[in-house]
């Protein structure tokens, strides 16, 4: 795969830059980074967190709504509360914090003298700095898909915001982004913003969704739309933006089963604001520059069962790895990554898994209606947590694990929704069975079944 080398790090003059040594350097101080750092610290590692904002907490600082912590803390918290609990924990340790600091490169792109140590170059208003660590945890989160990526035609006036940007204006900047909004996309952020706008006096004309089903969690459809009588228009999308200087209206059209707009169904919806909640994309430019291979399906790193990427010592977790719907799941995953990174760093770069078996080298691929499968590689015969997401909702389907065309495991029949990131424990004996069959790949297939 092509290596993208940022122009920012291509010069060799680094001797002047100060260096500080750690065992584990965590990039990102959001929920993923904090959980990873705490887990690595607990395992005895010297840990640093690099965060580009002046505060820890990441995107949770602007996710002021409730719905967090139900599984991790067994109580319903708001995003800031969930973040604050971790911030307090981090402050109670000696984890080194580099705030207001932007990582501009991981390693130099050139093979380092000591290949067992990674170098993270960062800059802040106080200058440039290099942190070294045997392990690096990538926890940079994700960004929002833009209007251009979904190719909405029309004009380019002010008043088009990604839902997250509007959320920042409303919840952080104390600024009202408009008065009359249309929301495209029924993902969780879109739904949450429908309620936030309504409460803040911005009328929401409707939420439009390309797919024939809502993309967000059911709780959010109920609490954010139904509670306020905001209509959800399924199989309908924005087909034109109207207005030269500021958004004046959008044209919406119904779509057919192939998601193509149906001529004759166009309708003009007057509004001054268009919020886009049309998907999240892991922010992996740094990872790619460091030589990390990405999975085109998740747009996150290809990792093994310990969340280690293809570059030894570099781990990934949270939304930079794959997009999660619940922060609690980010925490669980990141604790695993942090612990694994610490074990790697403290174990001198040796195998991280006690039962690692050099003869175990399996790739994992999705099939059926599974959109992706994570981890993409399994290198140990041990109970392994598999994550996946289905591409469309089904009432009755089952997970099947295939090796060399043979079904080595079948889950129970149940419903699956694309809004939910699923997790599934793959027993060690199933992995062993795949190896016994001489397989180099196991397939995680989610297959709809006819109801009895």
């Amino acid at each position, binding site marked *: 795969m*092509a*290596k*993208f*080398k*940022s*122009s*920012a*790090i291509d*010069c060799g*003059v*680094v001797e*002047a*830059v100060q260096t500080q040594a750690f065992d584990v350097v965590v990039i990102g101080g959001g929920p993923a980074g904090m959980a990873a750092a705490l887990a690595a610290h607990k395992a005895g590692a010297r840990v640093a967190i690099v965060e*580009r904002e002046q505060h820890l907490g990441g995107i949770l600082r602007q996710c002021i709504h409730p719905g967090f912590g139900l599984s991790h803390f067994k109580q319903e918290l708001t995003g800031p509360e969930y973040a604050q609990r971790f911030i307090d924990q981090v402050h109670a340790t000696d984890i080194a914090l580099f705030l*207001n600091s*932007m990582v*501009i490169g991981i390693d130099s792109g050139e093979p380092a003298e000591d290949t067992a140590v990674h170098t993270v170059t960062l*800059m*802040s*208003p*106080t*200058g*440039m700095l290099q942190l070294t660590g045997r392990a690096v945890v990538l926890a940079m989160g994700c*960004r*929002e898909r*833009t*209007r*251009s*990526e979904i*190719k909405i*035609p*029309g*004009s*380019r*006036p*002010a*008043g088009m*915001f*990604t839902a*997250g*940007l509007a959320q*920042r*204006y*409303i919840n*952080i*900047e*104390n*600024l*009202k*982004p*408009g*008065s009359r909004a249309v929301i495209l996309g029924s993902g969780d952020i879109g739904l949450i913003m429908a309620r936030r706008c309504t409460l*803040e*006096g911005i009328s929401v004309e409707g939420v439009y969704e390309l797919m024939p089903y809502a993309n967000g969690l059911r709780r959010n459809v109920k609490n954010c739309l139904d509670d306020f009588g905001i209509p959800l228009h399924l199989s309908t999308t924005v*087909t*034109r933006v109207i207005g*030269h*200087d*500021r958004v004046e209206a959008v044209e919406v059209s119904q779509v057919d089963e192939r998601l193509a707009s149906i001529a004759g169904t166009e309708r003009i919806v007057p509004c001054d604001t268009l919020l886009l909640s049309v998907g999240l994309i892991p922010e992996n*430019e740094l990872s790619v520059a460091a030589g990390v291979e990405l999975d085109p399906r998740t747009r996150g790193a290809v990792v093994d069962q310990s969340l280690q990427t293809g570059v030894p010592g570099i781990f990934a977790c949270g939304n930079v790895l794959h997009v999660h719907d619940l922060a609690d799941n980010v925490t669980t995953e990141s604790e695993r990554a942090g612990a694994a990174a610490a074990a790697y760093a403290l174990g001198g770069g040796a195998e991280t898994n006690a039962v690692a078996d050099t003869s175990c080298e399996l790739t994992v691929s999705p099939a059926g209606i599974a959109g992706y499968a994570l981890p993409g590689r399994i290198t140990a015969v041990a109970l392994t947590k598999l994550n996946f997401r289905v591409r469309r909702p089904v009432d009755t389907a089952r997970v099947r694990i295939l090796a060399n065309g043979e079904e080595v495991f079948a889950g129970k029949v149940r419903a699956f929704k694309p809004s939910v990131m699923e997790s599934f424990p793959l027993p060690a004996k199933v992995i062993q069975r795949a190896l016994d069959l001489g397989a180099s790949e196991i397939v995680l297939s989610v297959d709809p079944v006819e109801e009895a």
Partner: protein
Amino acid sequence: MAETFDIAIVGAGITGCAIARQLARYDLSICVVEAANDIALGASKANGGLVHAGYDPAPGTVKAQVNARGCELYGTWAQELGFLFRRTGSMVLGFNDEDRAHLEQLRSNGLVNGVPELSIVGPDRIHELEPRASADATCALWCPSTGFVDPFEVAIAALENAVANGVTFMRSAPVEAIEVAGSGDDARFTLATPASNVRCRYLINAAGNGAADISHMAGAEEFQMVWRQGNIVVLEKEPRTLMPLYPVPTPVSKGVIVTGTVHGNTVITATAAVREPGDTQTYAADVNALLTGAHKLVPDLDTRRVVRAFAGGRPVIQGTNDFFIGQSAVVPGLFQAAGIQSPGVASAPAIAERMELVMREAGVALRERADWNPIRHAPDDFDRTPLARKEELIESDPAWGQIVCRCETVPEAEIVAAIRRRPGAVSVEGVKRRCRAGMGRCQSGFCQSRVVAILARELGCDPSEVLLEDTGSWLVEGPLKGVR
């Protein structure tokens, strides 16, 4: 109240800015009058940034005379004005014998037009020059002099240099009427704008899509503009910048071209359809045509990674496909630079040079100034700056270490500089055009609110008064909390 100048140039597009820069070396008072609130907001904005070599225009046309010369001049202009210019060379790809005949025709055109070093090459050489070019291409016109620029940067650099040499820039000053006095009058023309009036002895019409209106207001040549609209798509940065690849041209346009940009992105430019004047909408059919056309030239292009799609109108004079550069035959003292459609960017330095010649021949006194400075220093571009210089910058001002746009690595100090330069940015898009904050893959999702705050602080206004682009493009209303 009206200020009087020797010369007023209507239009701060790339043409007007280049002319202003060219004439600034002479002992003349010059004013550039622009309808919009910033530079290059019209036809110059909807442009792929290609510096075409000049084998395309029919020999004998004005275009043929200025295109190759403009392309040649870009080397010097880039050096003096400190803008990015990459002369990568280009290929026109042919896929069959009919195409090959077209390529031969282009090559002989090019020879007449003075385009250097044109040759027809075969598949092996094609692959060597651009490994990503379609393997189906059987032949290509290889043209080493083609290059690309950021058209905003060229226009901004030219006008900055002109302003540094004493030229006045009036923005948000749409010309609403022109009064013409006797030909000997030192203030023959009076331009009425909403802000104030501008009087001048010589008037240069570089108004792009508004050129017909200006000519009409002055009682000069009557012509009509056709809005030949083009859609353009920008893709994410690539590990290696693509060489411009052209298809065999059609009678009205050069077809769908794929090219790298000075910032490392890939651009697909452009469709051509006559639409209502002022229509800058993108169309699904156009965008699809661009993506399809691009795949024909570069089959492995990842067209899902669209950063931005945009559109604009090329100012075409009805009834001719050529530029109109010269003194008005009806109203002496009025100089026309009209119908500057494609290849307007490539030709700009030569159009300026030609305008100078036309004026000299018309008897305009051009006396060189002793203090003219041709050099414009580009602002520090943090992302491109070597590490050692980065450290120096941060040490000089911590705001250099405060990254605002994370996609393009633009620190706060660079944004402040873009606002404080003369002429500076007055809008979020103006900041973006000068230092690329918000130009990256997230399209300002992360940094817009921060740029708004910096603009409000620097311009001394409320965030609710900050504009995305021009009048009416407000971004936010007032505060939500702490108010009754």
